[in-house]
Structures are given as structure tokens and as C-alpha cells.
């Protein structure tokens, strides 16, 4: 497969219609898609715990449309096919018809639902138009988790080879490749990057720090989105600066056996979700670490926080998001942030994977309010904040860029513009990528950065350059 658009074209077996997929797929299934889908669905129902959920949802969805007015995609398109309940119903009707007695009985009386190639086409399109932000779930009076149904629908599709190539290739490298990470960053490149960051920090902060690598017995084994090592040096330097200033430099380490917190299994596969978590846990065990410290990545944080306890067994290490750690340092007086450095108006974007459940909502705000003079919240904010438009792995699928900009991210862009902020904090690798593309697409005069990028500017470094000196040097560089 050469990855061109033509390679993403499959021939439907029904009516010999040519089907074009909305994203590149490595090996499109062309024969007996319906039968294979049902076979995969049956296997999932047999071995997993989805049955009670599906039974309950099948019976009780209210068709009230509250999910529609909560969904950023529907709010942008107004297309009934973008209503979360419509999409969820595609899977529920399939379940009811083929896996329940009531559905079988109903089918004896003529007409009714039958799974077809066209419906599979709707699913493979619809489930990847959903950003899995679960805003709909918060507004559903029944509490139907449409994000979970999107995950399940994508899981079943992936079992018949229908998954965006970008995600599949990344996971394959992470689970079966040499580098064991989604960006194919070899160990040598990681070590080079850490050397580079060390030099940068010496130049900008005035302290020489050797990043701890493969140190055994540390309290924290650090994982971030591996792409941060290549693309977000300031976030990582901000993380390192907090650890150093707090006197915790000897309490953490990066492991070269596995240094990627990304988990695309959360987006589309229980199988990969579990195996990636196990890989994470193995690295902590290898290093005899005591807990997992996740950098600024929403889905990496949620994957580890929610699923290490599920899949970890006796090795279910505690998981801390870096913002929780930083806030703890501030509250205990272990670090000091200069309140005179950041003068711009700053706003905060809540990454869905850490905010929707209410886990990380107040912590970053408390951090920001401790050193930012002009902080303004988006409306709505917190658990009800809108998705960046690139959630659920969509940001990694480059060929749907236009969809992410003009549909997925439209509401977010309006929200951002209304704040009038010149800095938007987005403590998530995927959200940052999406928001950076959004501000360019909609010409919004706003810089998107991680929380620790901003902290890096304001943190007092013991034995290093002062914040004022660093601000002056940074201003000179910009000139």
C-alpha cells in the first residue's frame, strides 16, 4: 500500500459500489464485511463485559436529542448523522438485532434493521467524526456514554481491519517495533534530545542538569507523549525545572525501555489499550520505580490513571499527572513562581480526557492564578468545556485536517477568540497540536503552549538566573 488516496478505496460487496474511505486504511476489508463485523462483535461480547451496558442502552435511550446540543461536531454541522445518539444507535440496533432474543423475534415479522455494507460505511465514517469528548454523556439524562460506544464501535471495526492507518502504524511500532514508541524515536535520539535539553537549560536557566535516565528505585518514573521529546522542549524543560526547583531531582527518572505515555488503544482498541498499559507498567517494574508521573498529555494521563488499576493487578502503581505534582509543590512552598513575569492575558483549555471526569479541573487554574495577573476562563469551562476538535485520536489523522478545522474545532475557535487571550494553555500534546492549527486556520492572535512552558518563564531556579534576567534574554532573542 503506498498510502495514496487510491489505496484507501475499497469495493463494497453489496451492489458492487465503490466505497471511498474518509481516511487512509492499510488493508481495507473488501469481502463479507457484514459477516466479519458480526463475527468480531460476537467475539467482543463473548469475552468482554459490554453485554450489560449494551442491554441497558438498547432499551433505555430516550431519543431526546440533548446530546446533540452538547456535541461540538453537531453544533458545527447541524447534520442529524452527527447526533451522538444517532451514531450510537447504529451499533445498538446491530446488537439488538443479532444478539438479543427480542431483536430476533422482531426480525421475524418483516422489515426492521439489517446490518449492511452501507451501515458499516456509516459507522466507519461516523465513529471517526466523533472526538470522543463525552460532552454528550454529561448531558444525557440516561447517562449513556456515547464516547464508550464510539470506542467500542471503533474497536469492532479495527478487528476487521478498519482503522486509520496513522493510528495503526503508530500502535504497531509501539507494541511490536524496535523503538516501542509511536513516533519511532530510537533510544539514541532520546538521549541526544536529553543532552540538548540539558544544554538549553544550562544556557537559559543557568544550571547544569543531567536528566536522570534508567535510575533504579526512584519515586517517579516519567512518561510523556514521546512527540514532546521532539516537538515540545519547553514543556519538558518546564517539567524538569519544577522537579529541580522543588529539590526532587533525585526522585525521578526516565526509562529507556519505554518512554512513551501515548496510548492510542484508548481511542480504538481494548486489546491495544491493555497491552500498552502493561508495557508501561513493565518499565516501572524494571526500574523498581514506585509510581508513574505523566507529563502534559490528556489521553496518556487518563489511560494510565484509569487503566493501570484495571490492568496492573499487583503492579498497579499510583499515577500522578504532572500538574498535580506541581500544585503540590506550590502549596508546600517547594517552588516559587514570579507573579511579575507573565503580563499577557492567559486562558486555559481543559483537555477532555482529564477534565470531563472532574479529575484535573481546578489544579491548573490554581497554579495559573498563583502567578498570572490576567487569567480569564473560557465559557463554558471545566468539565463542560468544549473539545479542541482533535480528540479521540483525530489529531493524528492528517488527511482529515479540514474536518478538524472547519467542523471539529469550530466551536473551540469561537470560544478561544471570545476570551481575547494572547496565550492559551493546553496541557495536552494532542490538544496543543490541534489548537495551534486552529489559531492559524481561524487567524486568532493567540499562542498555544503547555502549562509548564509558562511555568518555565516564571519559576525561581535555586542557584540559577533570575526570572527577570531570563525574561530580558528571551525578549532579546525574539527581537
Amino acid at each position: 500500500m503506498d498510502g495514496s488516496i487510491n489505496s484507501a478505496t475499497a469495493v463494497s460487496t453489496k451492489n458492487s459500489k465503490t466505497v471511498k474511505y474518509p481516511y487512509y486504511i492499510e488493508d481495507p476489508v473488501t469481502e463479507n464485511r457484514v459477516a466479519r463485523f458480526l463475527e468480531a462483535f460476537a467475539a467482543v461480547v463473548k469475552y468482554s463485559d459490554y453485554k450489560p451496558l449494551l442491554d441497558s442502552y438498547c432499551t433505555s435511550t430516550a431519543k431526546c436529542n440533548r446530546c446533540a446540543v452538547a456535541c461540538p461536531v453537531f453544533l458545527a454541522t447541524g447534520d442529524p448523522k452527527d447526533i451522538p445518539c444517532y451514531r450510537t444507535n447504529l451499533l445498538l440496533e446491530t446488537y439488538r438485532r443479532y444478539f438479543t432474543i427480542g431483536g430476533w423475534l422482531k426480525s421475524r415479522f418483516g422489515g426492521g434493521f439489517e446490518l449492511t455494507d452501507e451501515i458499516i460505511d456509516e459507522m466507519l465514517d461516523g465513529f471517526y467524526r466523533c472526538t470522543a469528548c463525552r460532552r454528550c454523556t454529561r448531558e444525557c439524562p440516561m447517562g449513556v456514554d456515547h464516547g464508550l460506544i464510539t470506542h467500542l464501535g471503533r474497536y469492532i471495526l479495527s478487528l476487521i481491519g478498519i482503522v486509520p492507518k496513522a493510528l495503526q502504524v503508530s500502535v504497531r511500532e509501539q507494541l511490536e517495533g524496535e523503538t516501542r514508541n509511536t513516533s519511532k524515536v530510537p533510544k539514541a535520539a532520546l538521549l541526544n534530545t536529553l543532552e540538548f535539553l540539558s544544554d538549553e537549560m544550562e544556557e537559559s536557566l543557568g544550571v547544569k542538569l543531567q536528566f536522570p535516565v534508567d535510575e533504579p528505585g526512584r519515586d517517579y518514573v516519567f512518561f510523556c507523549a514521546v512527540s514532546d521529546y521532539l516537538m515540545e522542549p519547553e514543556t519538558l524543560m518546564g517539567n524538569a525545572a519544577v522537579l529541580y526547583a522543588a529539590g526532587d531531582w533525585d526522585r525521578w527518572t526516565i526509562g529507556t525501555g519505554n518512554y512513551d505515555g501515548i496510548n492510542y488503544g484508548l481511542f480504538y482498541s481494548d486489546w491495544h489499550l491493555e497491552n500498552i498499559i502493561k508495557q508501561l507498567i513493565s518499565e516501572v517494574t524494571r526500574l523498581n520505580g514506585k509510581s508513574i508521573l505523566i507529563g502534559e498529555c490528556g489521553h496518556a494521563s487518563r489511560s494510565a490513571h484509569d487503566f493501570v488499576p484495571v490492568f496492573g493487578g499487583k503492579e498497579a502503581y499510583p499515577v500522578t499527572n504532572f500538574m498535580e505534582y506541581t500544585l503540590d509543590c506550590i502549596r508546600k512552598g517547594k517552588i516559587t513562581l514570579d507573579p511579575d513575569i507573565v503580563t499577557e492575558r492567559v486562558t486555559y483549555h481543559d483537555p477532555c480526557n482529564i477534565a470531563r471526569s472532574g479529575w484535573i479541573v481546578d489544579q491548573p487554574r490554581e497554579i495559573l492564578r498563583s502567578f498570572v495577573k490576567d487569567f480569564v476562563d473560557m465559557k463554558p469551562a471545566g468539565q463542560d468545556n468544549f473539545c479542541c476538535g482533535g480528540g479521540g485520536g483525530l489529531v493524528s489523522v492528517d488527511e482529515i485536517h479540514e474536518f478538524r478545522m472547519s467542523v471539529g474545532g469550530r466551536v473551540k475557535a469561537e470560544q478561544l477568540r471570545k476570551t481575547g487571550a494572547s496565550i492559551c494553555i493546553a496541557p495536552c500534546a494532542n490538544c496543543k497540536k490541534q489548537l495551534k492549527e486552529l489559531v492559524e486556520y481561524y487567524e486568532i492572535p493567540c499562542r498555544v503552549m503547555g502549562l509548564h512552558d509558562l511555568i518555565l518563564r516564571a519559576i525561581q531556579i535555586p542557584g540559577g538566573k533570575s526570572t527577570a534576567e531570563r525574561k530580558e534574554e528571551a525578549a532579546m532573542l525574539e527581537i
Partner: protein
Amino acid sequence: MEQWIEFAKGPLFAFTFLIMILGLARLVVIQIFSLITGKGRRLRNAPWRKIIADAASWVVPVKHLIPGTKIFSTLSYLFHIGVLLVPLFLADHIVLWEGFLGINLPAIGYGVADSLTLFTIFCVIIMFSFRLFSRRLRSMSRHADYGLLIAVIIPFISGYLATHPSYNPFPWDVMMLIHLLSAELLFVLIPFTKLAHIVLFFFDRISGLHWQLRPGAGDKVAEELYGKEARV
């Protein structure tokens, strides 16, 4: 006609009520059994406090009045007040509960019951109109969504007319029979339609629990479909 009414008030009421109770009980038992056998110890990891707090926030869901759905949501919520209070606490119904179940519930006054009944009818008419005329709602609505609204409104209309002869164009016994039969139809429909949200509401809300996936399931699914050498 009197014999039909006695039959509807007696054996048919008992039979249909039993179908409703057993049907709902079956749903509850299946859900609990599936969760315990499926999730087992992982039930402990679920964010129970958040789940309960979330479910509780829907008892008086003021914060869930979001733009685009305020009227429909408000009416849908308020409609439940009449739907719950009138069948349970109207004096004429309490006689039935006492006779069949031996439970003595307090009665609401006829004036209150009349107001609640009319308000319920009003809510149903508006909700039905929304489903007819709102493109967004119409796109999601199934036949059952219209049918169930009709099934709910008929006992209320017939009950009101039976107790207000001046508005009733039909003989009392005909209206009473319609009232009884339509209510009993609802009993039968409840466990087999979305009206089962009476008991399923809580099980739907525990999505935090449903994310407690079964360890090892992914490997088993992959092996069943692609053999031991299944690859990404």
C-alpha cells in the same frame, strides 16, 4: 360493561401489574448479575462517589438546562411529577394499591390531582409537537417515541374525563374501561420499552464502571479471530 370493568380492575390489573414488576425485576437482576459476574472485584475500582453524585445531580437537574433544549428538557422533567404522583397517590388509585399490595399510601387532594393531570397532558402534547415539528428531534424519533407518548396520555385523558362527567362525551363506564385498559397496556409496555428507564436509569449512569474493562479480554478476542499469532 360492568363485568368488563370488574375484570379490568381485578384479574387483568393484577396480571398486567405483575408483568410490569417481574419484567422490571428481571432487568435489574440481569444487570446486577452481569455486573457482579463480569466485573467482580473491579467494581471496587469504579468511581462510586462520582457516579452517585452524578446520578443525584439529575434529581433536580437545574445545571443541566443547556441552550437549545431548555423547553423540551424542562417539560420532560416536570411531566414526570404528574406521571409519578397521580397514579400512585390519587385516592381512587390508593384503593387499588391497598387491595392488591396491602400498602396504604397518603392521598393527594382531587384539586391537586386534577391540576397535575392537566399539566401532564399539556407536557405530553408539547413534547409530541416537538417530535413532530423539530427537525432535529424528528430525525432521531422512532415510531415508539410517538407511540409511547400516546400510550402515556390516554390514561390521563380518560381518567380526567371519567372523573369530570361534564366534559365526558362518552358514558362513564366506557371511559373508565378505556382508562383501565390503557393503564394496563402501559404496565405491559414498561419493561419492554424505553419506559424501563424507571430501573435502568441507574445502570445507564454508571459508565465509570463500564470503563473497568476486563483484563485479558482483548487477547482472547484477537486469538479467537486471528489465532495465537494475532498482530497489530
